């Protein structure tokens, strides 16, 4: 099975040869990969070197936390890569941003109104959790839409709060 894995704009061609060998950009590497089902902790011994890391799935791809450093990667198989190439590079950045609650908590205040023009970095909402007030900011310029919550409400993790179009 062949994959194209991207890290910091650089693409690596990775082939899973068998249980004990992979090839990265054509170089064969001996591996011993162990993971515990349902847990994001993985142990990899590659050419005798022992690494242990957390690997998290996010909406954008995979995050690898290795020795205190976080790597953001995307992994595609060849078919996906071709499909994406045909469709043209992702039109993602200009799309709609849906603000979801990053954790359960209490809406303290919403300093914006529906229809407001907001700038990248502007505070959209203040959420209190674990006795700390957290400012949730807009990742882009745009217009506030679909405001679904009110100050004083408690929200669940990942609950939709508002959108910026």
């Amino acid at each position, binding site marked *: 099975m062949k994959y194209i*894995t991207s890290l910091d704009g650089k693409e690596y061609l990775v082939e899973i040869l068998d249980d004990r060998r992979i090839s990265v950009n054509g170089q064969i590497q001996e591996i011993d990969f162990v993971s515990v089902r349902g847990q994001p902790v*993985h142990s990899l011994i590659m050419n005798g070197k022992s690494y242990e890391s957390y*690997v998290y799935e996010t909406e954008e791809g995979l995050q690898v936390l290795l020795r205190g450093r976080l790597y953001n990667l995307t992994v595609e198989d060849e078919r996906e890569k071709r499909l994406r190439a045909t469709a043209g590079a992702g039109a993602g950045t200009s799309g709609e941003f849906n603000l979801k609650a990053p*954790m359960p908590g209490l809406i303290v205040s919403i300093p914006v109104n529906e229809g407001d023009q907001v700038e990248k970095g502007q505070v959209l909402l203040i959420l209190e959790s674990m*006795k700390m007030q*957290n400012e949730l900011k807009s990742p882009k310029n745009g217009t506030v839409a679909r405001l679904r919550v009110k100050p004083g409400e408690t929200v669940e993790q990942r609950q939709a709060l508002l959108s910026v179009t």
Partner: protein
Amino acid sequence: MFKKVLIANRGEIAVRIIRACREVGLGTVAVYSEADRQALHVRYADEAYLLGPAPARESYLRMDKIMDIAKKSGADAVHPGYGFLAEREDFAQACVDAGIIFIGPKPSAIAAMGDKAVARATVVKAGVPVVPGTEDVGNMTNEDLLAVAPRIGFPLLIKATAGGGGKGMREVRAIEEMPALLMSARREAESAFGDGNVYLEKLVEGARHIEFQIMADAHGSVIHLGERECSIQRRHQKLLEESPSPALNEDLRAKMGAVAVKSAQAVEYLNAGTIEFLLDKNDNFYFLEMNTRLQVEHPVTEVVTGIDIVKEQLRIARGRSMSYKQEDVKWTGAAIECRVNAEDPFNGFMPSTGQIVQSIQPTGPGVRVDTGVYPGFEITPYYDPMIAKLIVWGETRAQAILRMRRALEEYRIVGVRTNIPFHQTLMDSHRFMGGQFDTRFVEERFSLEDAVENKESHPEIAVALATLVAHQQTQRAAQIVRRNERDASNWRWVGRWERMHR
């Protein structure tokens, strides 16, 4: 002599206090909210009583219920821990009125020191230097404060009079910012302490936050156990503490220690407390406030002095003389504490909640972990994000840093994101290693991203790991689909099983 202690707290500090009580043969009574039925303090205590729903206002801040439980269980002493009711004069007074020993200072001392404005006035009278700020005032309105501010000068700090832990604290660079910041500071103070009062203080730039541990018994003895360096902060929250401070020498320690003792004496202090100072670049120091309770970071002092502060608190509360005189207090080596918080350092330190699925604690020589969480325990949004304190001791500060590095790398917590990578990066920072930092260091001169850039990178390993994980998921998904084709009703169980299997 009391026999049974009610611990009016939760989390690691409740566990810490239960341990001390057990080691001196005292009975223990835990109280808990609905979110904490499975918490370690409930499991470890001799007795446990439900307070109410998860929010602190309906449970750990319910003084009335706690007093009822004390009476019902026959507890004849109360230890408040830190936070919640620990610095509430009325709670200490309620204990006294009910004939229950409050393990801490007298209500009058809490009142004098607990209101930060009164505290300043009190120590000034005793000749202790303070940071310039609003004096002798309790309930100042926003108008009053806006009027006083220019006389103090900018930058300045808005601080909650009932404050602690950086809550309700705001930095003001110019008068224009002040109205909005006053509002948010009061809002946060009100929510954290049920008291929206604030006062102003000049911001001492380039300052270190140095605090002294004080112990005082009912026989007139007041001693200090040396300092803790607490300048590593973010949003006025301490993240790391150490003892001794790299900025102090023996002379300065003796001088500041003497002032700390004098400050405590000014309010006829009893039991454990902490005097916080700002120390500027020229070794000038200013009284900041006194915390009239056990401090989160008390273990670094325990580790370098060998003194069990909580056991000593119990001893003092029983009316006995302290086990130590000032000259018995000796400091050996260096200790560092990292506060492990459930928050994502790569995403603006956003709190992270969820069930702890696995926890492998670092152990071995010179390592101590104080925690109230374990695999299966749920981290909820109701309380403080601090889930553990990792404390190490080394013969020297350099050895303590090296030990902390290996301990941080060993620590595995699965289920929530933690700030461990922040601490790992800090341990690699040359400024931290050199002891060259002030209270603004983390926010102004330390960037996790920049620091990480300079660390050894393993892109090929990350690539291999991500690809292997993605591959594994593809394979498993394919298997589930295949099973599913045979027997659609299995789907639900497979999914659950996949998540649960370990």
